[in-house]
């Protein structure tokens, strides 16, 4: 595997100058990234520019509702549709939230995608933000519609647009952007070409990270990526996160590619969890490092009922699409 030249960051670590790429597998993954991106911007005096035809209250992942002066997690941060609308209206009034329809942002008279116009829109919004007193600007849009559209020129236009957005954002001390694309919107080689016009890959915030163990939700396949060291001091939090991804009747995959250590109690915990799954489900261990696999083979897979050896190849994540 070649060393990737891009940085991979959880959404909360995206910073000015980042031209970031999100190829999401479905609404759940998109919401888990874009929701915090928008919310955290609004809550920290940053301007949020979202090019979309959706109304503000339908933006991805905005529950609980962000409201001026209320940080996420506060008791006052009530979760209702009316609150969401009121809160977003307040941000819209002050110009902190700019939801711009595609027609106004990047479509030519015939309704075709016009990269130059998109660039103008973004530059205008970034320039205005400085005067408005915002300390940064968060830009995002979902490009899937361009790729899905009837125009054969969708991809080249997108590539051109992305290069220019990158040129505009990367040297900026104020602007950061996340370009979203539905993975299913175009073939793999096109996704790779688009991804390669970005320096930063954005992913969900980790579910847990104490510097020793990091747990990250994965969406395709459904499960968790477990990085670092899993030991008795961290069994409880791991069991909790594992239970959270095991609610729907879906196979759970654990990506162990970056797992440095798992204790014997941790193996027991996995087997314990597997006994509670339905008969047609299994807990799949993907990309087992040799050290971990050695311990499992030492005791024998049959002593870990319900656990299955998964894929061997490189993980199916962004950086090795």
């Amino acid at each position, binding site marked *: 595997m070649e060393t990737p030249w891009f940085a991979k960051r959880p959404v909360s670590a995206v910073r000015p100058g980042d031209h970031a790429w999100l190829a999401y597998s479905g609404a759940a993954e998109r919401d888990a990234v874009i929701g915090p991106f928008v919310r955290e911007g609004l809550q920290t005096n940053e301007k949020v520019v979202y090019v979309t035809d959706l109304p503000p209250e339908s933006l991805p992942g905005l529950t609980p509702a962000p409201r001026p002066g209320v940080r996420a997690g506060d008791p006052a941060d009530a979760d209702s549709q009316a609150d969401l609308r009121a809160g977003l209206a307040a941000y819209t009034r002050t110009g902190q939230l700019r939801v711009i329809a595609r027609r106004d942002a990047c479509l030519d008279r015939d309704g075709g995608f016009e990269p130059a116009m998109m660039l103008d829109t973004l530059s205008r919004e970034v320039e205005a933000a400085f005067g408005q007193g915002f300390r940064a600007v968060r830009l995002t849009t979902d490009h899937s519609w361009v790729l899905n559209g009837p125009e054969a020129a969708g991809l080249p236009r997108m590539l051109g647009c992305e290069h220019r957005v990158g040129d505009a954002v990367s040297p900026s001390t104020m602007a950061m952007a996340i370009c979203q694309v539905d993975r299913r919107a175009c073939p793999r080689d096109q996704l790779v070409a688009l991804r390669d016009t970005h320096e930063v890959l954005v992913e969900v915030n980790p579910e847990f990270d104490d510097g*020793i163990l990091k747990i990250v939700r994965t969406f395709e396949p459904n499960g968790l990526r477990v990085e670092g*060291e899993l*030991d*008795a*001091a961290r069994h409880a939090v791991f069991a909790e996160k594992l239970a959270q991804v095991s609610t729907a009747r879906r196979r759970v995959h654990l990506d162990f590619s970056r797992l440095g*250590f798992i*204790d*014997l*109690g941790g*193996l*027991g915990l996995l*087997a*314990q969890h597997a*006994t509670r799954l339905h008969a047609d489900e299994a807990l799949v261990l993907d990309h087992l490092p*040799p*050290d971990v696999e*050695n*311990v499992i083979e*030492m*005791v*024998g897979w*049959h*002593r*870990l*009922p319900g656990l299955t050896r998964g894929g061997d190849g490189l993980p199916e994540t962004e950086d090795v699409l």
Partner: protein
Amino acid sequence: MTLEHRAFLYDDHADFLSVTVPYLRSGLERGQAVVAVVREPNLSALREVFEPKGAAIAYFDSADFYRHPVRTLRDYQTIVAQSAPRSVCALAEPVWDGWDDRQTLEWIRYESLINVVFAGSGARALCPYDTGSLPPRVLDEARRTHPLLLCDGRTGGNDSYVDPATFGAKCDRGRRPARPCDAEYLAIDGHDLHALRSFVAERALTHGLARQPAQNLVTAANEVAANALQHGIPPMGLWVWRECADLVCEIGDNGFWRPSPLTGFIPPGSALQRGFGLWTVRLLVDLMELRAGWDGTFVRLRVRR
């Protein structure tokens, strides 16, 4: 279904074949799964007898099969499990040369443990002992670890047989060498064993252990320390020292525990059963010694370079 565990004290090659060939044949006739784990040149001799007839016998060279007593028990158990519903007929000749005193003791204990691990398996095991070449200690102990004895062409009961728990207790009674005073020490406090793992990994590396045994030692030490944190009484800590080619890790706590002499030797059915942890520790290191006394509980792990 009871286990038939017989020691066979043989004089020479002809004597060996005169008993083992009919024994293996009887297993085939009874429809048992037949395995021959035998030293050379006996192994080749048996192959010459049975292979031309296409007999369904699985052959293993003892030199490969008998390297680590707890792993060997595990491997026999796998054979028994995979052969079910057929029972197993095993010709099982351990290796007795090349071990130091302590290792020899563990192999003797292994013979005794066979009686517990396979108690209900219906298996038959015939263990040949070469009276011409084996030291008297090994031959004497064979009488204590096998309920049946085949000697001078006759199988008989064996009055010297000692039950495995009593036998195991005797094995552990001997005094262990004290910890050297220059052993490195790391206190175990708090619940995070990350520092302990780094500590052990560094010493393993410095000692020159290969990557896999080093990592196995880290996993084993972590498990024993986690047990101490869960069940033990402070103060607790870890000592590390070298004894020639061995790296030794001892984890101690002040708790009072009376473990069975069979603790950690019996393969558990799954990771969900009690005892999985200590059994795996025994698999991961070359030797695990458990000592529980008035002054606390001490688990010593040993890995050879």
